[in-house]
């Protein structure tokens, strides 16, 4: 299990795992056109956003049968925002990517991830399962993002942040 308590500042960034970019560079143009047909890309900057990925496991008992459940949670190392994820896949790092430096310490982030998973479980099952959460793995990862400078025919210059995992976008 990867060290969950040690600060990660010294780990060489190219040793960190990257989440798989399901939207690669060559898919960007199509995606941007899909967002708005009048958008044209001027420049693209790849970004690797620092996250902590934690995988939890627990047992549930239903009608005498024991089942194992897993859930992964990503916590942002700059703001501490957590999200649960399904289908974690790793992939190749984006070349020449800007790597924002993580700002938060790992232990509170792990705690956040744990709380989030507990919350989701409670909400989902409306019941409390028999066993506690076991942290199976905790590692720092980079999430691929594309920062796209584009111009729109009618609205001028726009700066978009595009999530390489799910294609979602955000206007900067």
């Amino acid at each position, binding site marked *: 299990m990867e060290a969950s308590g040690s600060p990660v500042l010294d780990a060489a960034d190219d040793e960190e795992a990257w989440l798989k970019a399901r939207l690669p560079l060559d898919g960007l143009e199509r995606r941007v056109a899909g967002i708005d047909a009048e958008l044209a890309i001027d420049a693209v900057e790849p970004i690797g956003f620092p996250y902590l990925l934690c995988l939890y496991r627990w047992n549930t008992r239903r009608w005498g049968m024991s089942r194992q459940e897993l859930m992964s949670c990503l916590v942002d190392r700059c703001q501490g925002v957590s999200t649960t994820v399904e289908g974690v896949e790793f992939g190749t790092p984006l070349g020449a990517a800007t790597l924002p430096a993580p700002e938060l310490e790992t232990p509170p982030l792990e705690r956040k991830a744990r709380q989030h998973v507990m919350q989701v479980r409670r909400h989902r099952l409306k019941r409390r399962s028999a066993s506690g959460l076991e942290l199976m793995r905790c590692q720092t990862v980079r999430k691929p993002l594309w920062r796209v400078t584009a111009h729109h025919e009618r609205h001028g210059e726009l700066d978009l942040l595009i999530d390489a995992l*799910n294609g979602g976008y955000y206007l900067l």
Partner: protein
Amino acid sequence: MFGLPVSTTWLVIGVPVFWVLYTLGFLWVTRGWPGIKRSESGR
């Protein structure tokens, strides 16, 4: 109407009408929001 005094009729009809208008207003203000299907294909 319905055998009710005027003020009661105003209450019973008037406030619901207000809410219908409010809901319509809400729909108008958020008219740029796409419907569910479009937003799903957007991702």
